[in-house]
């Protein structure tokens, strides 16, 4: 129960932040990657704002005995830099650059009620499912 309530609250706050920072608008993302006179540095400022808070959170919160609604912390400890990670980042970056959508803003943009965002989110879920199937069946590797 607590887990579900906190997931709802975190989702609401996260979604509000995506709206306020306008990261939900693909035009802002494309504007950041368009290094011309129309360059829009907003994305960097969103990252600075988010990192300022989350940096402190990740420094101190994992020191408590256990999370409020979970038995232990599940923080990835992987340190291996491999082809899979690099390939992932390239595929993700190209996809992100084509539309200006990444997973969080894409899902939250459903609130604008455009059919296009539904198309994107549907394809993204199919892509994620496909990726998961590829990893589970053809690309077993320790990370």
């Amino acid at each position, binding site marked *: 129960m607590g*887990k*579900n309530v*906190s997931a*709802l*609250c*975190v*989702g609401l706050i*996260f*979604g*509000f*932040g*995506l*709206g*306020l*920072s306008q990261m939900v608008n*693909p*035009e802002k993302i494309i504007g950041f*990657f368009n*290094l011309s006179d129309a360059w829009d540095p*907003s994305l960097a400022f969103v*990252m*600075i*704002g*988010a*990192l*300022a*808070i989350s*940096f402190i959170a*990740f420094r101190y*919160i994992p020191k408590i005995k256990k*999370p409020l609604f979970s038995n232990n912390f599940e923080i*990835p400890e*992987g*340190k*291996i830099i491999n082809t899979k*990670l*690099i390939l*992932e*980042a*390239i*595929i993700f*970056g190209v*996809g*992100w*650059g*084509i*539309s200006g*959508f*990444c*997973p*969080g803003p894409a*899902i939250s*943009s*459903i*609130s*604008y009620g455009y059919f296009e965002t539904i198309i994107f989110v549907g394809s*993204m879920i199919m*892509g994620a*499912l496909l*990726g998961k199937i590829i990893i589970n069946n053809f690309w077993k590797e320790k990370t």
Partner: protein
Amino acid sequence: MENFTPISSLSGGAIIGLAVAIFLYTHGRPAGVSGILIGLFTWQKRDYAWRIIFFIGLILGTLIYRLSFGFDETISMYESPILLIISGLLVGLGTAFSGGCTSGHGVCGISRLSPRSIIATGIFILAALITVTITLRV
């Protein structure tokens, strides 16, 4: 730089950071949207509900933002449906391979100074930069 919105970007970013902090405190894991999505495909029923609820919250949170600021902002997408499908497939595929996206690697991972996340973020920003530079010229 006429579209630059420093104040709303910084404050919106800080609100996202707050969401990440609360999630870490309550769930004990990074609030990476793709990580939460990928978890749906591990087929563990008892781990389903909160993920779906998080996504509903994400949509409602943006809706609340729109309600409180009078619905005058819109979002713009210029791509054809085919390009949106290709883009969606690539983003989904990419995140599935390493379970990280802008929030997972970019915010949570960099906060932990994770070398994997720092490298992934650097590469996907560079890849997006190259992609946008090419697509805007074509």
